[in-house]
């Protein structure tokens, strides 16, 4: 293998890709525009629904509307009392958010110390209705607390008689760790998906596409070894996978930082230089694995269309381990995951973002990943040397 040949072919591939708008759209524009847009629109939509739900809460009161609770409910911000011929239907149609049934002579029954039953109807499929139910519950509880407080006072007791234990809760996790755990659940998924899918257009184009156009046949008659050609193509696919992955990661981090809730500002300060180096190393190994798999599939395929069909499941290969690991903390990840291809990378990414890197796991993951990369590249090289696969 000649490093000079590899470098020349790699440069040619990069120049070719640089001029290919479609590849850049897939690798960069989608991560930089689509992901932020989707997240922005989702958060905006949720925020708008919440604002609307708070600003206007139309509820229907059935039964005795002359009671004190009705006046109490009316003091809640946004509450508007409606009348409806069929209150349940009004909730179903969205005209009212909830219905509360107040029994007759409620105040009198409460003064006498009786147990009073009240009913609330709402639509669990409607977020605004859910908010109205929560508002009614909260309002009824505060009304109830007022009654209990008066009863305790009449009996010569304080609220401590009802709540003798004061519980205070303290968070031991730093803001960095909170950020890390939040990012650890989503960032590895995005990185893996981009690593797998970012190289697919290029892998399709530079083997199956070249075979289809006839340029590969010309290339293999040049005094260049198959290993040099394969290495240059592997580096190209890896580069695009990494570029796409880093673009996804950067865009996601930017969006998350732009959309913080009060007191929950996300930060990557937990990512120490050693962790960053380990993160990059893991991404490089994973990209080499995905690139080799994609080159194998592209070599087997008889046309770019066939290559694209073969490569679609590669994205699922990246998603399955990421989804399985997403809800786990590093302590809960089964040991077998550190040995399996792709699972091992996803597990290590989780540890890196969680800030709980186990050196023993790093050793296992890097060595097994290296082994899988070598095996997959060997398979790609074997396929690349088969004459029937390179000639149309």
């Amino acid at each position, binding site marked *: 293998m000649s490093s000079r040949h590899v470098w020349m072919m790699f440069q040619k591939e990069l120049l070719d890709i640089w001029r290919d708008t479609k590849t850049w759209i897939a690798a960069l524009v989608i991560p930089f525009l689509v992901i932020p847009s989707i997240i922005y629109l989702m958060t905006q939509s949720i925020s708008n629904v919440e604002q609307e739900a708070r600003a206007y809460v139309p509820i229907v009161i059935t039964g005795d509307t002359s009671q004190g609770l009705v006046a109490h409910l009316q003091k809640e911000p946004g509450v508007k009392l409606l009348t409806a011929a069929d209150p349940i239907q009004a909730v179903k149609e969205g005209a009212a958010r909830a219905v509360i049934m107040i029994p007759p002579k409620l105040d009198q029954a409460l003064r006498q110390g009786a147990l009073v039953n009240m009913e609330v109807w709402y639509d669990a499929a409607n977020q605004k209705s859910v908010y109205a139910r929560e508002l009614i519950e909260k309002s009824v509880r505060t009304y109830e607390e007022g009654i209990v407080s008066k009863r305790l006072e009449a009996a010569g007791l304080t609220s401590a008689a009802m709540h003798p234990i004061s519980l205070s809760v303290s968070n031991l996790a730093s803001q960095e760790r909170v950020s890390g755990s939040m990012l650890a659940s989503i960032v590895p998924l995005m990185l893996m998906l981009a690593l797998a899918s970012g190289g697919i257009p290029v892998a399709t184009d530079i083997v199956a596409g070249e075979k289809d156009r006839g340029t590969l046949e*010309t290339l293999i008659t040049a005094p260049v070894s198959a290993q040099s050609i394969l290495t240059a193509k592997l580096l190209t696919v890896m580069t695009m996978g990494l570029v796409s992955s880093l673009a996804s990661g950067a865009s996601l981090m930017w969006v998350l930082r732009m959309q913080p809730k009060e007191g929950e500002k996300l930060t990557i300060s937990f990512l120490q230089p050693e962790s960053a180096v380990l993160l990059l190393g893991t991404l490089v190994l994973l990209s080499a694995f995905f690139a080799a798999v994609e080159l194998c599939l592209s070599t087997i395929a008889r046309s770019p269309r066939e290559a694209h069909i073969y490569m679609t499941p590669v994205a699922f290969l990246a998603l399955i381990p990421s989804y399985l690991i997403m809800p786990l903390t590093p302590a809960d990840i089964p040991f077998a995951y550190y040995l399996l291809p792709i699972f091992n990378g996803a597990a290590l990414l989780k540890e890196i973002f969680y800030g709980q890197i186990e050196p023993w796991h790093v050793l296992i993951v890097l060595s097994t990943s290296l082994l899988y990369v070598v095996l997959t590249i060997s398979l790609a090289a074997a396929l690349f040397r088969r004459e029937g696969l390179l*000639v149309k």
Partner: protein
Amino acid sequence: MEPVTVKGISKCFGTITAVEPLTFSIRKGEVLGLIGENGAGKTTTMRMMATILKPSTGEIRINGYCVQKEAMAVRTQIGILFGGDVGMYNRLTARENIAFFGTLYGLAGMELNKRIDDLADMLEMGAFIDRRVGPFSRGMKQKVAIARTLVHDPQVILLDEPTTGLDVSAAVIFRQLITTMRQAGKTILFSSHNMGEIEKLCDRVAIMHKGKLLFHGTIPALRAKSSIHDLDDLFVHLVTGGKPIE
């Protein structure tokens, strides 16, 4: 020693025999025309000579190098132009396409640029040499492909239907180029369906049919074997008879 010697090579793909054992040679400064219908085995033979396919039997030597055992050395000696659609890197300019292959053959800097400029002059590509090849016509692409084949000044040139897609004036330019290369001592294997072209350019012809070599010799020698004078008619007579001419 002859620059190209092919001894008893055959090629099988599974149970299908694409080329039955065939033997021929090409002398220095000679143009050998390879004639045959589609599927005759011409391209398979050229692919074996270009190290792309391994012969099932026999041996090919190019300038003394064995194709099977010294593939890399053989590749430095040959230039090949494939028939059918012209494979190009469409997002690269014509110059970049030619230069890329030139660098793979060890050319660089001034030497490479001069060689590309000379080829551009010879093939009248000056007007589009620095344009991306994607929107080129088939004829323009064919010119670029010819320049790419010749960029490293190979001693042995394999041309598989090189004038397909070229307009009349471009085909004339190309035929002049072949004549110039023959005078420069290049060894050329040239396949074509155009019998007039074969007659004008080739010193000898090899006629293949369904993987078999039916004739190998000069055109006058071929005519002497039959009362038919027209080369097209003679070819049809030969392939429909299907028997080798002694």
